[in-house]
């Protein structure tokens, strides 16, 4: 099958009854993970292994004048010390990061270890490998670094001011495709335009103009980054890494260290959460260089403070939004300016914020201006639907305000303006078949929405969300065993049960139980190129590769059976794990029997598949939340929450629900309490799970889920990515609920108790 073709829905298999798809089998890696046997990044232990630790900048912005490592090198137990001088000169080379595009190599190297300048508190400047982590830590204290401290730039709008201190003297704004003549903190300004914005506002009966801000927030995965490297004297480097993409690590390390890809093997360990934050490399090249210098394996594990200071986070942002609607509740125009913090180096996700912002609606007159801005914070990384929550928060809050002004039900407004197939998106491309309206209808009709909310200081909020999803390249290798089972090696690291959702698609093709498919995540030497586990693409794209592998094995089995029976292969079919003739002579053989026979004959049945599907189809969600506000303390309690989402086709519904629930809860944390708190010197003050307040089990009710299935015509089973969109609506849903509970609208995240109290006292 041509993996880039669009499936005609009438010809896909979605109308058929499934045996495996839609069931809830126990995941294949489950036993390892409930018994403590699964090996995560920090669990790797090798003979003679050393422990690496990284020295980090105490300043947010400073020139590194000198680094003296002599005393550290002399400490008993220290086997290697490194600085940025140990990396090959990046020069003007570029690195291709797949989903994240082509980027200059120098900032990537500098982010791993600062060469001339530190641009955020916690920026790496040197590293040590020693016989114990404690000795390595002691050695860090002996490294002398001389800094010239510079004024930090911590806020996106301040960074954009003419006279702001500059992070990089050589950064010139890409201004709508033209290079500007003066260095600036603004890396780029881009724009989408649809229709005529002035006509759109002229047609409006109501116009609102507001500002919205999102604090910097972190992905918050529980497992810190960990990388172990073993660089052999023959030049071969093996790395064990907790990552969302083993191939991305291979590419990054290959480019930073100029080691040939053929001499570099990345073995992905189990991964304890990523949410986009485990795509960039941090300690990986460091562990490699330390291993080369020490001639021993080196493991570099971050602690939690390092994770907060120097990895992730996602962009803090400023959004200015102006929208117009008619008395009938039609959106006539939207004009917005998005300014996203990129962190210390260019490359925020503002463009994705722009694409997603109005995607749940058909807006004909639109102007979106997008700015990518550097500030003295860690280089931002992707975080679940990267960029979308910041911008959609603004749009969804303003739409709710319009609903109040118009006295219109928020679901009715959404159905009236909702996007559908053929509507033009902000970048000019029409929507394919999407489930926006179906999702909203399901939300409107659900028991939660139909049950009135009662009681003082309580309110119900509604918000929708969109995420683009991704296709990209995925590979699997499948092989039929002599007992009729199939081993399936796949290139996508498994963060949330995707071994099983991929295996289920292969099992469905062959009509065998999913327990007869044995999936594993392969290293970079053992499977074809596969992009990161991200973009909600794994069940979609890697699942498709498994589907193709199943189809290939199916054809091979049919051919083999046809040869044995001496009939034409067109007269043989495979269903429910049995191969049989269709010409009426009633011959049949189970896959197990045929596999045993072929195995004895030495005939290998298997398949190696690589796909790059394009029509991944966007995902829509509409959420409903009931809150209660304590007007004395400003604390917001989530009373009830329902998430409704179009999954295309839910391969393993439990894990679809799990993605929805997890995304909602991250969104609630983002809405209410999570934020990077910097002091005036640009020091991150809350780099712990104590003071970076992610929701605990006690802060939440059960999260109700409703899965809508509008099959994606771009996938053989109709799959759409499900992982990311659930983090998009909660921020606005909670803000809208607070507004309806106590009559005050909050446009700045997080809506912490003190902000709520302040808003309430400003109102009264």
């Amino acid at each position, binding site marked *: 099958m041509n993996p880039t073709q669009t499936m005609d829905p009438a010809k896909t298999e979605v109308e058929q009854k499934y045996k495996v798809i839609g069931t809830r089998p126990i995941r294949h890696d489950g036993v390892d993970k409930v*018994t403590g046997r699964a090996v*995560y990044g920090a669990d790797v232990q090798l003979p003679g292994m050393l422990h690496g630790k990284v020295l980090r900048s105490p300043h947010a912005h400073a020139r590194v004048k000198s680094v003296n490592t002599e005393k550290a090198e002399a400490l008993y137990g220290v086997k290697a010390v490194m600085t940025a001088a140990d990396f090959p000169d990046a020069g003007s080379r570029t690195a291709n990061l797949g989903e994240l595009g082509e980027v200059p190599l120098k900032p990537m190297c500098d982010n791993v270890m600062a060469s001339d300048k530190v641009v955020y508190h916690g920026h790496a400047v040197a590293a040590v490998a020693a016989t114990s982590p404690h000795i390595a830590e002691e050695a860090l204290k002996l490294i002398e670094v001389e800094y010239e401290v510079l004024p930090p730039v911590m806020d996106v709008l301040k960074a954009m001011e003419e006279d702001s201190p500059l992070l990089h003297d050589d950064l010139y704004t890409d201004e709508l495709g033209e290079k500007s003549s003066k260095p600036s903190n603004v890396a780029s300004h881009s724009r989408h335009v649809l229709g005529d914005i002035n006509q759109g506002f002229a047609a409006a009966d109501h116009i609102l103009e507001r500002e919205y801000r999102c604090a910097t927030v972190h992905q918050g995965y*529980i497992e810190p980054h960990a990388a172990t490297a073993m660089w052999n004297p023959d030049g071969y480097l093996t790395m064990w890494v907790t990552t969302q993409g083993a191939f991305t690590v291979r590419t990054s390390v290959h480019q930073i260290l100029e080691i040939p890809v053929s001499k570099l093997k990345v073995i992905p360990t189990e991964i*304890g*959460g990523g949410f986009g934050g485990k795509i960039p490399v941090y300690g990986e090249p460091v562990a490699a260089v330390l291993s080369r210098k020490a001639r021993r394996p080196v493991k570099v594990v971050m602690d939690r403070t390092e994770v907060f200071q120097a990895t992730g986070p996602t962009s803090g942002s400023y959004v200015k939004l102006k929208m117009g609607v008619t008395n009938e509740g039609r959106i006539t125009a939207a004009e917005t300016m998005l300014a996203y913090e990129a962190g210390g180096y260019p490359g925020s996700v503002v463009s994705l914020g722009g694409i997603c912002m109005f995607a749940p609606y058909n807006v004909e007159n639109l102007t979106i201006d997008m700015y990518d801005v550097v500030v003295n914070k860690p280089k931002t990384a992707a975080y679940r639907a990267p960029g979308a929550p910041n911008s959609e928060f603004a749009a969804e809050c303003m739409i709710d305000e319009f609903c109040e002004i118009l006295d219109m039900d928020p679901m009715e407004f959404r159905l009236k303006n909702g996007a559908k197939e053929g509507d033009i998106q902000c970048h000019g491309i029409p929507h394919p078949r999407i489930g926006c309206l179906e999702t909203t209808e399901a939300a409107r009709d659900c028991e939660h929405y139909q049950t009135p909310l009662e009681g003082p200081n309580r309110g119900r909020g509604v918000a929708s969300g969109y995420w683009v999803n991704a296709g990209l390249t995925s590979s699997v290798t499948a092989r039929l065993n002599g007992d009729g089972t199939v081993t399936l090696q796949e290139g996508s690291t498994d963060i*949330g*049960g995707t071994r099983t959702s991929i295996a289920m698609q292969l099992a469905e093709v062959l009509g065998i139980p999913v327990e007869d498919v044995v999936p594993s995540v392969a290293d970079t030497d053992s499977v074809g190129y596969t992009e990161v586990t991200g973009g909600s693409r794994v069940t979609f794209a890697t699942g498709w590769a498994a589907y193709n592998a199943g189809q290939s094995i199916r054809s091979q089995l049919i051919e083999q059976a046809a040869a044995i029976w001496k009939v034409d292969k067109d007269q043989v079919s495979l269903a429910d794990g049995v191969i049989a003739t269709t010409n009426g002579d009633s011959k049949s053989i189970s896959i197990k029997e045929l596999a045993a026979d072929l195995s004895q004959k030495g005939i290998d049945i298997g398949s190696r598949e690589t796909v790059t599907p394009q029509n991944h189809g966007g995902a829509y969600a509409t959420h409903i939340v009931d809150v209660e506000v304590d007007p004395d303390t400003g604390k917001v309690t989530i009373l009830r929450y329902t998430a409704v989402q179009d999954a295309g086709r839910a391969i*393993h519904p439990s894990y679809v629900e799990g993605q929805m629930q997890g995304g909602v809860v991250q969104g609630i944390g983002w809405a209410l309490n999570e934020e990077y708190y910097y002091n005036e010197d640009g020091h991150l003050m809350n780099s712990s799970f*104590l003071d970076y307040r992610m929701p605990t089990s006690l802060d*939440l009710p059960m999260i109700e889920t409703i899965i809508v299935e509008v099959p994606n015509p771009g996938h053989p089973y109709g799959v759409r990515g499900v992982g990311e969109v659930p983090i998009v609506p909660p921020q606005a849903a909670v803000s809208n609920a607070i507004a309806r509970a106590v009559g005050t609208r909050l446009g700045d995240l997080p809506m912490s108790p003190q902000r709520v109290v302040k808003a309430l006292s400003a109102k009264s």
Partner: protein
Amino acid sequence: MAAKVHVTATINGEPVEFLCEPRQSLLEVLRDELKLTGSKEGCNNGNCGACSVILDGLLVDACIVLGAEIDGCTVETIEGLMGPEGLHPLQQTFLENAALQCGVCTPGFIMAGKALLEKKPQATEGDIRHWCAGNLCRCTGYDKIVRAIIDAEPQLEVKK
């Protein structure tokens, strides 16, 4: 460097002896000295519960207990949970409920659930949410974890 301490303890029912530096935490001892890597380090300061183990019958974060402190004590870790008859009921209900995604918080949650149900066999949703507030999960939103612990209750009753 301070002298190493000799410690004798019972871990997962087996007598264990080891030498450790006084500065090594129980978590480091379990993971680095005894190679019991099922207990995870998520924060190393008692705020995430990924290293939850049961020390003399009480649920603790192994990262803020010194290895030297457990001399003469009994420690239960995730590795000791599976019995001769197979998975512990909590391990089974976590699987059946899809109560894990990345799975790194799972050992801590299962140990927390075990300690809770030993104390309160009929724990309610509210009891579970309160008891497990020291165990962070970033993937699941807790919903399926809470359900898995509730589901284990009748099975543990039968086992008694």
